[in-house]
């Protein structure tokens, strides 16, 4: 069973969200998602400064198996992207909740995060898959 940290919030499309304060949130894909995809070979990230809405496809995680869209879990402005993934996409596999983060969003409305799943809710959503 994969690890699902309780201090994060989740989208049913397998993104995780971590509050960094000041309305900024870090986003990545879950350990469960990287397990499904297998070894990551490319990660296509959004541009810093992009304005995104919740549910927009903003990144692509391409593994040996498939290309998978990554969706913005909340709306806002992209304020940072993980440039290390350019040369080391495998960080998504080895440390999905840490060094494998993908981008940071400055939320238009931080309360959108409350609509996301908690760890238990996400675990239940995986079980239904």
């Amino acid at each position, binding site marked *: 069973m994969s690890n699902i940290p309780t201090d994060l919030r989740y989208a049913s499309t397998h993104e995780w969200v971590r509050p960094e304060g000041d309305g900024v949130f870090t986003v990545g894909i879950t350990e469960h998602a990287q397990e499904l995809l*297998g*070894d990551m*070979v*490319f990660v*296509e990230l959004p541009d810093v400064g992009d304005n995104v809405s919740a549910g927009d496809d903003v990144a692509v995680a*391409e593994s*040996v*198996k*498939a*290309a998978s869209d990554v969706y913005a879990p909340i709306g806002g402005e992209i304020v940072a992207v993980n440039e290390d993934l350019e040369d080391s996409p*495998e960080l998504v*596999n080895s440390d999905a909740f840490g060094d494998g983060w993908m981008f940071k969003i400055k939320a238009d409305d931080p309360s959108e995060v409350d609509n996301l799943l908690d760890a238990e809710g996400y675990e239940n959503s995986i079980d239904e898959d």
Partner: protein
Amino acid sequence: MTNKTVLHAKHIEAGAKMVDFHGWEMPINYGSQIEEHHAVRQDAGMFDVSHMTIVDVTGAQAKDYLRYLLANDVAKLQDKGKALYSGMLNETGGVVDDLIVYHFDAENYRLVVNSATREKDMNWLMGKADGFDVTITERPEFAMIAVQGPNAKEKANSLFSAAQQEAVAGMKPFFGVQAEDLFIATTGYTGEAGYEIMVPADQAGDFWQKLLDAGVRPCGLGARDTLRLEAGMNLYGQDMDETISPLAANMGWTITWEPAERDFVGRKALETQKASGTDKLVGLVMTEKGVLRSGLKVKVSEGEGVITSGTFSPTLGHSIAMARIPATSDATAEVEMRKKWVTVKIVKPSFVRNGKSVL
């Protein structure tokens, strides 16, 4: 019903992720497909290929039968143990299966055919045997382990008895020899040196463990696919099938046309196809981000084709593919990827050999 090889428990023990592969529960990887791929290119890896079907063909007319059954000609095999790759065609020139045939003598051959097509192949072999004095015997009592990579032979040799070491000493590529309990062949599906070893089922677990102890890394079907694709080797069901001519599957070299009087199944259809021209299987190379995948549409000046196999090449660090397209003199093709047309290079379908790029 799912079949399991005798090595199933060893895979679970090694942390394999198991998947259904045409009715067989097989390891897709043991953690990282890419690391397994690199192990084979740089050191030594092993694959459980026990699901593949081993068939012995014996009898007074074994040679005549195989000269009729196969598009390649077993009469070319003079040396004991020499192997030949061939397509087994139907009357319309489609590929029923691709296989390796080992020659021991004119009355004694061994075939290795695909697992996914086992039942169809056995019916085909039996059906075509009418009127020939041959005996066709499946050999399910063997497991098969492929040990591949630059250090594969050396590591496998450390397990062999003195007699087995002597039997394989100086053995050229594409030969097989029965040495005591093992059938050891210098064949493979990776583009690296190594062995494919048939081992009695009851000894297989022990043999696998000894290879593991000798530093050979277990590799799954995922790495097997990226390795064979880099090596430009076809996968049955993907790069060709019953509806595809070997001429359109980069298998023209496996058709032996001479002597013209040899009648083999599919010959007439092939002659017509050759005269009128067929699609070609080519290699594609894309150095930009992204991965070419099977099923994607390909365009060249002469018309449209399709990617039959595509992947990220761990050795090259970018995507490669095989595609069946109209015969063309174009140097590039357009591939439709995620609703955009991307220009890729057309090459011969061979990308990596013995650890190095051949592009």
